[in-house]
């Protein structure tokens, strides 16, 4: 069987090569941390959870099945860890409910002058703006957007990780995009 880069690192780790595991962590830390921090919306908690995730990965690495992609397997463990944490500490309040509240509530505290028109904003700012709204949509939509765009996963992989039917994943991502577009329009972002 042809092993990919991750699987070679896993083999080395299981043979006792610590550097190999460190390399594996370095490869994934940014994506995992970005996902976790946007899920829990607290940096310290995100650091703890990301560390717990790598610790867990190490302890169950011998159970990894080489027929599957390491990333999908790891993301599922990460997703479950984060969801467990959120369920145990259910204090998350989403600024936007399913229907989408007014953008005035959403960004009222921001010192952004919306009336000047977001049209003029540079592309990087558009991106930051969009991701700022992503942070505020309900978890059931947010988690899928994060898996799709931060972890760069296909609908089928997301379905596998979240244990949701592919159809549901697809519908929720579509719905999430509708919410995001609506918010952008409300803010005069899209004219």
């Amino acid at each position: 069987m042809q092993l990919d880069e991750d699987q070679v690192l896993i083999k080395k780790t299981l043979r006792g090569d610590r550097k190999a595991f460190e390399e594996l962590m370095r490869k994934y830390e940014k994506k995992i941390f970005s996902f976790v921090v946007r899920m829990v919306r607290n940096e310290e908690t995100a650091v703890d959870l990301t560390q717990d995730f790598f610790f867990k990965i190490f302890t169950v690495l011998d159970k990894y099945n080489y027929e599957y992609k390491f990333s999908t397997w790891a993301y599922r463990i990460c997703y479950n860890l984060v969801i467990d944490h959120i369920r145990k500490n259910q204090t998350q309040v989403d600024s936007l409910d399913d229907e989408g509240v007014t953008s005035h509530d959403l960004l009222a505290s921001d010192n952004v002058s919306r009336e000047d028109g977001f049209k003029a904003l540079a592309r990087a700012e558009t991106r930051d703006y969009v991701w700022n709204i992503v942070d505020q949509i309900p978890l059931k939509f947010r988690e899928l957007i994060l898996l799709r765009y931060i972890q760069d996963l296909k609908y089928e992989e997301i379905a596998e990780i979240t244990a949701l039917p592919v159809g549901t994943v697809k519908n929720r991502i579509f719905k999430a995009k509708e919410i995001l577009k609506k918010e952008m329009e409300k803010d005069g972002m899209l004219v």
Partner: protein
Amino acid sequence: MACLSDETLIACNEGSLGAIEAARVRDHLLLCPACRETAAHYRLLERALERPQLAMPPARLVPQVMERLFPAAARITSIAAVAAASFVFLVSWIYIYFDFSSSSLVQALRLTTDGTTGWLAGIIQGITSVYNGAQAVRKALGAMLRILFPAPLGVVAIAVAILGLSLLLALTVFRPRLKKAKRT
């Protein structure tokens, strides 16, 4: 012709429409400014989503995990310390038990160092006197304990020492793992 649904426009942006459906959407967009605008909005959104700015994890993240996984330095030094202590302890007991202070090797060593001075002679004399002292204590204890226990004191002492030291060694090796297991 009916306007395009949001779902169709999103799917079009994602490139997940079939060839025929995509052609139908293209035709409609040519004729309908409203749908064209909505499509443009979704395109802008898609572009923003496709380039997420990843959060930078703190530099301590990976090193701390490594430290938690492999508390290596502490473990190696504590094992070495226990091994060294075991060695000194066992050698002492064997020395005392077999009464090496009166053996020919020690006698010879003593003879060679008697005439000489310097740190080597000092060390040997020091060790011998410590062992001689221990030997005297053992003999006194032995005489006392022989009245209470029938087994030879030396054998019992070495057995207890080996048992105790293996227990200590086992604890040093397994304690980090127990700690690790408790944390998870």
